[in-house]
C-alpha cells in the first residue's frame, strides 16, 4: 500500500519534472564567475554589475549592439547641431519603469544631473564632463549642450554608466534595481543568484525568454560540473584551460569572440629604472608574446603591439615595434647602465591571466637578467597599492573599457606617462568628429605609445563562452561589458 503510493508519487514527480523540462524553453540559467557588489551600474565600476543588468534591467538613451555600433534605445532619434555642441533627443513614447511610473524627459535630466553632481559616485564621470546643460523641452524632448565637441558622445551615452534611472528609485537601485528594460528584477539571493523575469508592459520588441537567472560560480571546476550536469545553460566567459572539455561535445557550443580588454604589463614610468626609455625597450624585447598567449590564455588571446583593440577599425598592428629578441634586450640594458640587469617587483591581481602571465614573464625576464619578485594580491589591496597609491614597479592587468587610449593623456594615471605630445593629440581627438581624421589622430597616439614602450603590450583578452547547443542569440563578441538577453532564445 505504502509502497505503491510512493511509487505513484514518484511517477507523478517524474511527469512533473518532464513538464518543467519542456516549459524550460523560455527560461535560462547563466553561470557567472563574479558576483556583483551591487546592482546599480551608474554607481560602480564592476563589470559584474553590467553583466547582470546592462540592457536587461536598465536602458540608456542609446545602446551598443553586438558589433559595437551605436543604436537608438530610449531616444528614438536625435539631431546634432552643425557645431557638434547641441544634441536634441526625441524620446520614445509609452515607456514605463518596472514600478509602473512613466519615463519622460525629467528622468533623463535627473539621471545626467546625478552623474555630473559634485558628490556623484559614477565610475566614468569624466566621460560625461563635456555636458554643460541638460534641458527639458517637452516631456518627450531633451536638449543637451556640450562645452566641446565629443566624437564618442553617443557611444558614451550607450554605456552602462549612463542608463536612465528614476528619481523615485535611484537610491535603492543598488539592491532593488528598477529600470525600463525588457527584464524586471525579481530577487537577489546574496552569494548565490539574481533572478530576472520578462517585463510584460515593455515598450519595445518582447524578448523570447520569460525568466533569466544569473548563478554565481567562482570556481572553474564547479562551473565545469554545473555545465555538464545541466545546472546552468551556459556562461559568457569560461576559463580557457578547461574549454577542451566542451569543444568536442555536441551538447555544447563554444563561442570564441573578442573583448575590449587590452592586457598589459603596466610599468611605473615615474620610477627608476623604468623612467629610462632604453630599459622599457629592453623589457619589450624580452617579452615573448606568443608564449604568454599560449601559456596564459591557451592560445585564445590576440597579440597587441599598442593599447588598442585589434578588431577596431582604428587599430594599427605595431606588434613588430620591438620583436622578441633577448640579445637586443641585453644590449639595451647594458646601454642603459644595467649590464647585469636589475631586480623589481611584479604585483599580480587575483585573475588567472595575470597570475599565469606573471610566472611566464618572470621566467622570460630572468633570461635577460631582470629578476622579478612576484607578489600576489587581492583586488582591494591591488586597487589601493597600484591604482590609488601608485606603489608598484610592474603589474599585469586588463583594461576592459572600450576606446580607453585617453588614459595615456593623464599624467596622474597609475602608470605615470607624461607626454605633452600625446596629451595634445588626445585633446584634438576628443574634439574631432570626422571619422577619417579621428582615425589618423588615434593611430598617431597608438604609434607614439608603442615606440615609447610605455607599458608591455601583451594581448587582447578573448571571450570564450560555453552554451547549451540549443541556445541561440548570444553575443559572440563583447564590445561592451554585459550579457544581453534580448536576442537569446531556445532553438526548436
Amino acid at each position: 500500500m505504502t509502497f505503491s503510493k510512493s511509487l505513484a508519487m514518484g511517477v507523478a514527480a517524474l511527469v512533473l519534472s518532464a513538464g518543467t523540462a519542456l516549459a524550460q524553453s523560455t527560461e535560462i540559467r547563466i553561470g557567472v564567475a563574479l558576483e556583483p557588489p551591487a546592482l546599480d551600474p551608474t554607481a560602480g565600476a564592476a563589470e559584474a554589475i553590467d553583466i547582470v543588468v546592462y540592457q536587461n534591467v536598465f536602458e540608456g538613451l542609446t545602446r551598443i549592439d553586438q558589433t559595437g555600433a551605436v543604436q537608438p534605445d530610449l531616444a528614438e532619434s536625435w539631431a546634432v547641431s552643425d557645431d557638434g555642441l547641441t544634441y536634441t533627443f526625441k524620446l520614445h513614447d509609452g515607456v514605463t519603469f518596472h514600478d509602473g511610473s512613466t519615463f519622460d524627459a525629467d528622468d533623463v535630466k535627473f539621471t545626467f544631473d546625478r552623474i555630473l553632481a559634485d558628490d556623484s559616485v559614477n565610475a566614468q564621470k569624466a566621460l560625461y564632463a563635456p555636458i554643460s546643460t541638460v534641458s527639458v523641452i517637452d516631456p518627450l524632448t531633451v536638449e543637451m549642450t556640450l562645452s566641446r565637441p565629443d566624437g564618442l558622445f553617443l557611444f558614451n551615452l550607450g554605456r552602462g554608466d549612463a542608463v536612465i534611472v528614476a528619481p523615485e528609485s535611484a537610491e535603492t537601485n543598488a539592491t532593488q534595481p528598477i529600470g525600463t528594460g525588457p527584464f524586471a528584477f525579481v530577487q537577489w539571493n546574496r552569494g548565490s543568484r539574481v533572478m530576472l523575469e520578462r517585463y510584460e508592459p515593455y515598450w519595445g520588441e518582447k524578448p523570447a525568454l520569460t525568466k533569466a537567472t544569473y548563478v554565481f560560480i567562482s570556481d572553474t571546476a564547479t562551473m565545469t560540473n554545473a555545465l555538464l550536469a545541466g545546472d546552468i545553460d551556459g556562461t559568457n566567459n569560461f576559463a580557457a584551460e578547461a574549454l577542451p572539455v566542451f569543444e568536442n561535445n555536441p551538447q555544447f557550443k563554444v563561442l570564441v569572440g573578442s573583448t575590449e580588454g587590452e592586457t598589459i604589463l603596466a610599468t611605473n614610468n615615474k620610477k627608476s629604472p623604468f623612467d629610462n626609455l632604453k630599459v622599457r625597450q629592453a623589457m619589450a624585447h624580452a617579452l615573448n608574446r606568443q608564449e604568454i598567449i599560449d601559456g596564459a590564455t591557451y592560445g585564445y588571446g590576440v597579440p597587441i603591439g599598442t593599447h588598442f583593440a585589434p578588431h577596431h577599425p582604428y587599430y594599427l598592428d605595431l606588434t613588430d615595434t620591438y620583436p622578441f629578441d633577448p640579445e637586443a634586450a641585453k644590449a639595451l640594458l647594458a646601454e642603459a647602465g644595467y649590464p647585469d640587469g636589475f631586480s623589481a617587483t611584479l604585483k599580480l591581481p587575483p585573475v588567472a591571466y595575470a597570475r599565469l602571465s606573471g610566472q611566464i614573464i618572470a621566467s622570460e625576464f630572468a633570461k635577460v637578467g631582470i629578476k622579478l619578485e612576484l607578489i600576489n594580491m587581492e583586488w582591494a589591496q591591488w586597487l589601493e597599492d597600484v591604482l590609488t597609491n601608485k606603489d608598484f614597479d610592474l603589474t599585469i592587468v586588463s583594461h576592459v573599457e572600450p576606446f580607453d587610449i585617453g588614459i595615456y593623456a593623464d599624467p596622474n594615471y597609475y602608470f605615470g606617462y607624461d607626454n605633452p605630445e600625446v596629451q595634445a593629440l588626445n585633446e584634438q581627438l576628443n574634439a574631432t568628429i570626422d571619422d577619417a581624421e579621428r582615425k589618423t589622430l588615434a593611430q598617431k597616439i597608438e604609434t607614439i605609445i608603442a615606440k615609447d614602450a610605455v607599458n608591455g603590450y601583451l594581448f587582447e583578452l578573448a571571450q570564450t563562452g560555453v552554451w547549451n547547443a540549443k541556445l541561440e542569440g548570444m553575443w559572440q563578441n563583447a564590445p561592451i561589458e554585459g550579457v544581453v538577453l534580448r536576442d537569446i532564445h531556445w532553438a526548436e
Partner: protein
Amino acid sequence: MIPLLRGHPRLLVGAGISLLLALAGLVSLVWTPYPIEQVVVAERFLGSGPQHWLGTDHLGRDMLSLIMSGTLTSFLVAGLAAGIGIGIGVPMGLAAALWGGWVEWLVLRVSDLTFAFPAVIVAILIATLVGPGESNAIFAIGIFNIPVFARVARGGALTLVGQDYVAAARLAGRNRIAIAWLHLLPNIGSLIIVQGTIQLSLGILAEAGLSYIGLGTQPPATSLGLMLRDAQSLFLIHPWLSIVPGLAIVVIVIALNMAGDGLRDALDPRLRRQELGHVAG
C-alpha cells in the same frame, strides 16, 4: 639502531621511505632535473617520458623537479611547525606537571582554547594581517601543535613526578627547572619523538590544505598543495597533473604514520595501546 629496526618492519619501511623523500627534497636545494621557475610553454602537458620522468605541468615545468621542491616545502613547513610545538608546548607541559595548581590550570585552559581554533582559522587570521605565505602556514600549524605537545609532555611527566628518584633529586636540593631538564625530559623524550613524527605527517597534510586554498606557499615557489590547486581546473583534461602531487602527499603521510607507529612500538611497548594521534583541523 639496527636491531631496533629489525624487529619492527613498519618502522623500517616507514622511516626508510620518509628519509628517502626528505632526502629528495634536500637534493632539490642544490639540484633539480630542471629549474622549477623555468617556464617552457611549448613543452607543457607532456606525459611521462625519458626527458621528463613525471611529465610537465600547465606551464611546461618539469613535474619531478616540482615534486622534489614541493616535498622540501612540505617537510620544512611541517618540521618548523613541529619545532614551534615542541619548543613551546613541552616546557608548558613540564611546568604544568611540576608546579601544579594555577600553573597547571592555566596551561590546560590555554591548550583548550588553542584546540578550539583549527589551523585554518589561525591561517586565515594571519593571512588577513600579514598576507599569505609559507611563514603563515608555519605559524598556523605551529600554534596548533603547541597544546598537543603540552598535553603529551604533561601526561608523561605526571607519571614520573611521583617516582623515588625525582623525590630524591628534590631532597638533594635541586630546583624544579633542573629536575625537569635532568630527570623528566630525558624520560619523556621517546614520547615527544613519536608525537613529533605524527605531528610531522599532520603538518604536511595541513600545509597541503592551506596552500590548496591559497593561504600557504605562493608561486613561483611550489608545494604539493599548490600543485593540486593549479591542476584542479584541468582535472578532466589532464588528470595526471592532480594525481602526481596527490599521490606524493599520500605516500609521505602514510610513510610518516608508519614510522610514527613503529617508533612508538619500538621505543616503549607499554604505550602500544595508548592513543597518540590527534586530528588536525
